[in-house]
């Protein structure tokens, strides 16, 4: 069977949206990695769970159709921003490190989400399929309009990162120096965190809430093995993210029993493994040369 047989225009649009999202995730994730805050995206992803479940319950209470994507995605986005705010607030308290704050918010968000989900499951409300898509991910269920929206978000994220690339690099390398020359370090950190959170929330319907973070974390880690220039790492991470998302979505479309999220993560992990061994700049077989 030809790979393209039976793939219609809508599927192609969805593929483009998925690829664009992977691209944005890789680029935004690079600076989270360089700033050693990659785990924040994971906390945000888990933190969306109570938002999704809460939005579902609220919609059910109000008699709305809870499977409307806008409800669930809105809940996820609000929860993501609250998680970010909670991490930053906690990290600024004395004697709580940034990593502790991140892990605490991750665990609390996930716990609260599971509790709310168990409530959802006791209800005899229909439309739990929409919920399942956000939990486990499926590109197949995506509408072309959603794909366009995703593509738009990706272009926005890439444009922002491109425009402040030299400032983000300066802050990531030496935040103290950046502060002494008057760069708004806290705001640039917040920008990176918001971009990553946006990408993670947008990736929920494709990859699900557990695996959405993989697109932000794995491609930059793989890209780092190939180059010693921050700008090049950003571009490579975007390319690897894009290829992983595209190949993963295509695989799950062809092998219909494979869900999209795991397929994307496995492709990204393959990129990582190849980079780990063969990366030109730092791969295990590169001999340590530049």
């Amino acid at each position: 069977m030809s790979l393209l047989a039976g793939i219609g225009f809508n599927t192609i649009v969805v593929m483009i949206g998925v690829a664009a999202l992977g691209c944005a995730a890789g680029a935004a994730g690079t600076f989270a990695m360089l700033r050693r805050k990659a785990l924040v995206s994971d906390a945000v992803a888990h933190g969306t769970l109570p938002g999704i479940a809460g939005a579902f319950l609220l919609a059910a209470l109000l008699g709305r159709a809870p499977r409307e994507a806008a409800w669930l995605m809105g809940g996820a986005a609000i929860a993501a921003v609250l998680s970010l705010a909670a991490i930053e607030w906690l990290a600024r308290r004395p004697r709580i490190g940034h990593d502790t704050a991140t892990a605490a918010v991750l665990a609390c968000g996930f716990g609260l989400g599971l509790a709310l989900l168990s409530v959802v499951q006791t209800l005899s409300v229909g439309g739990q399929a929409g919920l399942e898509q956000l939990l486990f991910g499926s590109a197949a269920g995506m509408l072309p309009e959603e794909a366009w929206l995703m593509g738009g978000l990706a272009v926005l994220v890439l444009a922002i990162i491109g425009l402040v690339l030299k400032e983000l690099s300066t802050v990531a390398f030496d935040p103290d120096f950046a502060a002494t020359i008057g760069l708004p370090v806290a705001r640039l950190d917040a920008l990176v965190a918001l971009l990553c959170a946006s990408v993670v929330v947008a990736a929920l319907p494709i990859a699900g809430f557990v695996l959405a973070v993989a697109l932000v974390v794995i491609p930059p880690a793989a890209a780092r093995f190939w180059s010693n220039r921050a700008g090049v790492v950003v571009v490579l991470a975007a390319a690897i993210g894009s290829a992983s998302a595209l190949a993963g979505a295509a695989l799950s479309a062809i092998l219909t029993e494979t869900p999209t999220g795991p397929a994307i993560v496995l492709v990204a992990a393959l990129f990582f493994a190849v980079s780990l061994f063969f990366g030109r700049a730092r791969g295990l077989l590169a001999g340590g040369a530049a």
Partner: protein
Amino acid sequence: MLAITPPATAAGLDDRLAVEGLSVAYRGVPALEDITWTAPASGLTAIVGPNGAGKSTLLKAILGLVASTGRATIGGRPVAERREATAYVPQRASVDWDFPATALDVVLQGMVREAGWLRGYGRARRDRAMALLDRVGLADLASRQIGQMSGGQQQRVFLARGLARSARILFLDEPLAGVDAASESIILDVFDTLDREGRLVVCVHHDLGTVAERFSDVLVLNRKIIAAGSVANAFTPEILARAYGVPLVARP
């Protein structure tokens, strides 16, 4: 000798660096108490004192990197409003040298503000960054990843990034700690150039043996100011004994 950057005008008496009643406490433990000091208009000033005396903390407090009470001003205005006059060269150990950047990339970071938002660095700044790397003897290593350089070379990259600021006042934190002889000689040569250009170099320094020979002024610190002034007046065995708590020989 070639000027490192566009020539700086020597500071008038009204454009001095001054610290008034500056105190810093970490979790309630005082690190600096009531520091009041007016820096020389130009020249090389060493900040010396025992471990834990607050030398690095003083630089960080002046530059606004740690919370403090009191004032740090340049020409009567808060340092935060006079950032264009300052350049900070942090301790080498304060960053992760594994970062994906070349020596040239790091030097260019010193020009990130003057290049401005939404713009690239441009050809002219790249050329200037190359010239600065040449000045610190690293032109050959411009495209080398910074983690693959020696400690002395990394310190010189940091110095070049500070020079890229074209600032009148340079704050350096232990720039000679653990560097090889070649790097030390290049760094001290750059200091002399800066001195001749009328700039002020404020340098946290650990090696008492080279203070008298290399610096014009000294600030002796141990949480409080023990002494400040010219090396002849403030760098005496009695003062050092008070700062370090043990008798020391000031000159070898």
